[in-house]
């Protein structure tokens, strides 16, 4: 039982990752695509953060009055802090582009935009 519970995080990672990717591939609405992208990226955060946990550990803030305390791994947390920033940066740039597309084309549905380009 514990054997598989310990993998549940990674299964959820796989499912969320692919749900996000599916939203990006299958939806034509540009904002929906971007929302799918944020789920996709959030899944990766889960992958990294799941690695950092140590059984019986606490957040890696060293308490000098508790020697011998186990701490969880700080490195994946640092990486994901950076990745979250990258995610919000990409999202805001993507939204700015969508706003410009909406002003230029009058639509945010990908197939309608393609039709207008080919016309």
């Amino acid at each position, binding site marked *: 039982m514990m054997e598989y519970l310990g993998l549940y995080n990674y*299964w959820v990672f796989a499912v969320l990752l692919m749900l996000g990717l599916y939203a990006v591939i299958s939806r034509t609405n540009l904002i929906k695509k971007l929302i799918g992208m944020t789920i996709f990226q959030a899944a990766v955060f889960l992958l990294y953060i799941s690695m950092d946990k140590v059984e019986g550990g606490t957040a890696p*803030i060293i308490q000098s009055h508790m020697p011998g305390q186990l*701490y969880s791994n700080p490195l994946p947390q640092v990486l994901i*802090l950076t990745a979250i920033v*990258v995610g919000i940066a990409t999202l805001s740039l993507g939204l700015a582009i969508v706003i410009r597309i909406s002003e230029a084309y009058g639509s945010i549905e990908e197939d309608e935009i393609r039709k207008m380009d080919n016309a």
Partner: protein
Amino acid sequence: MVTLFGVFLLTLLVITAVGILRAEHLFVAVMLTGIFSLQMAAMFFILDAADVALTEAAVGAGVATVLLLGALALTNDRERPSGIRPWWPLALIAAATLLVIYATFDQPRLGDPDAPVHQHVAPWYLEETPRLIDVPNVVTAILASFRGYDTLGELFVIFTAGIGVLFLLANPSKGGALSLSQSAESQGLRHHLVPRVVGRLVVPFIVLFGLYVQFHGDYGPGGGFQAGALISAGIILYALVEGESMALKALSFRVLAGMIAGGALLYVGVGIAGILLGGNFLDYSVLSADPVAGQHLGILLVEAAVGLTVTGVLLTIFHSFAARDQKS
């Protein structure tokens, strides 16, 4: 007990994600995305990642939601109902999911202290940080010093996003957004008494908390990025309550551009100071006679730089979105 919480939250995450996918009203999808981020933040907290949880809550549930709502107001909040969806993406995705799940069986289990991740560099950080840098929060030590170069990159990623939004959305014909008309939107909620009174009451506390998170990052969860997100959230609330123009009077586009560039310059400047004082790029130990004091000074400065740029960029993005013409 914790495992049970984890399993519950993770299942909830999947359900929320499916809900986001199925929602055809984009407003609903955005709200669910905010909830998704909050659940994700709770999950991170359970997994001992307090800093990441704080950031995810401030960014995913806060800033991202505001930006998405702003974009919806400018575009269209309904997804066109779709006809028949092709089956092949679903099949492809299902196959890929199974492949990734198949790979998990060789992975170390959650919390396994013998996993390779906990063997190689991580113990070094945990053991050496008190001696070399002497801040209790190891995450801050790695973020700002050991991997400070990554954080420099992170600062420039958000800098780039700010530049991009300014480039795409700044409205020169209107002279920036400085000459906002006194329309209903720009006046905010001024004629609504309750939000206004409470908003004014809360804003200073939010900014104060932001400053606490900025300068307490060495000892507890927090740091420049979280602080920047919190402070800009406070100012965005002020803009919503008192109106865009009031917020811009306090911090104009010029000032914001100065903050963005100033933060970036400060970070690179600290790095170059390391070179000039005889160390390597981003070597803080040489900033002071005592290496540990130098590290403290360097971390303080670069965290301040990150806070400055992040506040500037987030507010610039918010104002750029808000200054755009509403859809007709």
